[in-house]
């Protein structure tokens, strides 16, 4: 990959970092939240992580794909290479990993092998899909053990997508405790520095959680929202409208996933007459590669970080190169062009739109 950073990119990254640092210094609420991450390697642009005071790289490493599947040696090499390449944000989950030989927990375990000796280089985000107080606490302790650390940077409510998910999150157990109470307590006690919420099916369910009154009005309910976002988003239950705007106005970090929509976006775009050899050859996007277009589309929004799943080392190098050298936002005309090419309805029936909210790699 190319480690070169254009002057423009370098200045932009420094400018954003400086602005974030200045804002943090002026805001007494942010002062206790001092960074535990060493400055990035300077290879990738960074953005403020909402109101947390942290600076994270625009490109983050997703904990599925080769990380929770495939060969152990390749997975570990990819994680090491990602950090070497400048990535300082790694996202995983309690449940990542599946079947034999990489069962549930494989992702956290492999990431822990690497970050045990590089903990201060990485902002670690993981998640629990438990919907009870004791379940969340149990998951958290297991995740700490797998990740070989004594704290998590961002602990997230995993995959709120239905009204039932919302109901369960706030449902009291026999002791009057909810799953949400567990997340808040873990943050209050400093075991996780920040808490967040994730979803990729229905933004209205995430909004309904954000609308719940906080038990502690002095603290934000959530520090971050992880949501699906890609060029097909606008056509079905868009996350980029009410939810993204709400998160930004509340100074929550916006982290995005599903940038290529389970690769469906890439597959669809390859069928377009404007595309040849994975590059646009005509129209407003002429000369831009497909993956670059997908990444720059989400980089055009006020997001902090896009986590991308990696299936092999070549993909990682491509994504690092794009983030380091070509992460300029798309122009409005380019965004419109890309959105207009993602309207084809896949043969998936009523859930068709969901295809683009999920992603394998």
């Amino acid at each position, binding site marked *: 990959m190319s480690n070169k950073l254009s002057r423009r990119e370098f200045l932009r990254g420094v400018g954003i970092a400086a602005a974030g640092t200045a804002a943090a210094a002026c805001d007494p609420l942010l002062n206790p939240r001092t960074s535990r991450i060493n400055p990035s390697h300077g290879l990738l642009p960074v953005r403020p992580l909402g109101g947390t005071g942290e600076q994270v790289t625009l490109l983050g490493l997703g904990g*599925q794909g080769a990380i*929770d*599947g495939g060969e152990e040696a390749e997975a570990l090499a990819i994680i090491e290479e990602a950090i070497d390449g400048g990535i300082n944000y790694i996202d995983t989950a*309690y*449940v*990542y*990993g*599946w*079947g*034999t030989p*990489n069962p*549930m927990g494989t992702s956290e375990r492999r990431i822990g092998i690497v970050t045990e000796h590089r903990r201060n280089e990485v902002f670690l985000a993981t998640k629990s*899909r*438990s*919907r009870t107080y004791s379940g969340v606490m149990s*998951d958290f302790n297991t995740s700490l053990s797998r990740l070989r650390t004594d704290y998590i940077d961002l602990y997230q409510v995993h*995959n709120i*997508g*239905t009204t*039932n998910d919302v109901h*369960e999150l706030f449902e009291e157990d026999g002791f009057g405790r909810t799953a949400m109470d567990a997340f808040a307590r873990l943050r209050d006690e400093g075991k996780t520095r920040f808490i967040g919420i994730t979803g990729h*099916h229905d933004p209205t369910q995430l909004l309904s959680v954000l609308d719940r009154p906080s038990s502690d009005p002095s603290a934000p309910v959530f520090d971050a929202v992880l949501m699906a976002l890609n060029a097909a988003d606008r056509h079905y239950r868009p996350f980029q409208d009410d939810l993204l705007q709400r998160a930004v106005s509340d100074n929550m970090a916006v982290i995005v996933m599903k940038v290529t929509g*389970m690769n469906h976006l890439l597959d669809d775009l390859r069928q377009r007459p404007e595309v040849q050899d994975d590059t646009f050859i005509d129209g407003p996007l002429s000369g831009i590669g497909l993956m670059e277009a997908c990444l720059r589309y989400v980089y055009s929004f006020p997001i902090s970080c896009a986590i991308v*799943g990696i299936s092999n080392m070549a993909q990682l190098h491509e994504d690092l190169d794009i983030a380091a050298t070509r992460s300029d936002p798309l122009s409005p005309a380019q965004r419109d062009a890309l959105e207009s090419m993602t309207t084809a309805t*896949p*043969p*998936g*029936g009523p*859930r*068709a739109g*969901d*295809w683009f909210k*999920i*992603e*394998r790699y």
Partner: protein
Amino acid sequence: MSSPTQTESATIKDQVRSFIVSNYLFGEDRPFAEDESFLQTGLIDSTGILELVHFIEQTFGFTVEDEEMVPENLDSLANVSRYVEGKLGG
């Protein structure tokens, strides 16, 4: 809750099959064996399993516990159908 009838069992299997065809076979209605391993054939990977779990929870109205997310319950059409029937009948 009573045990599913034979007709209800067929409906469960059909619903799961329809979900898999729509979401993992790209709508191509190719035949796949009821006991075909999703993982070994590459039909569904770890991300896909989470989507299958979401579908099951949303469609059949119960929570799939973490300890239930094992191949014996989820790694083939037959396994999923048996697991869902057991949960609904339990």
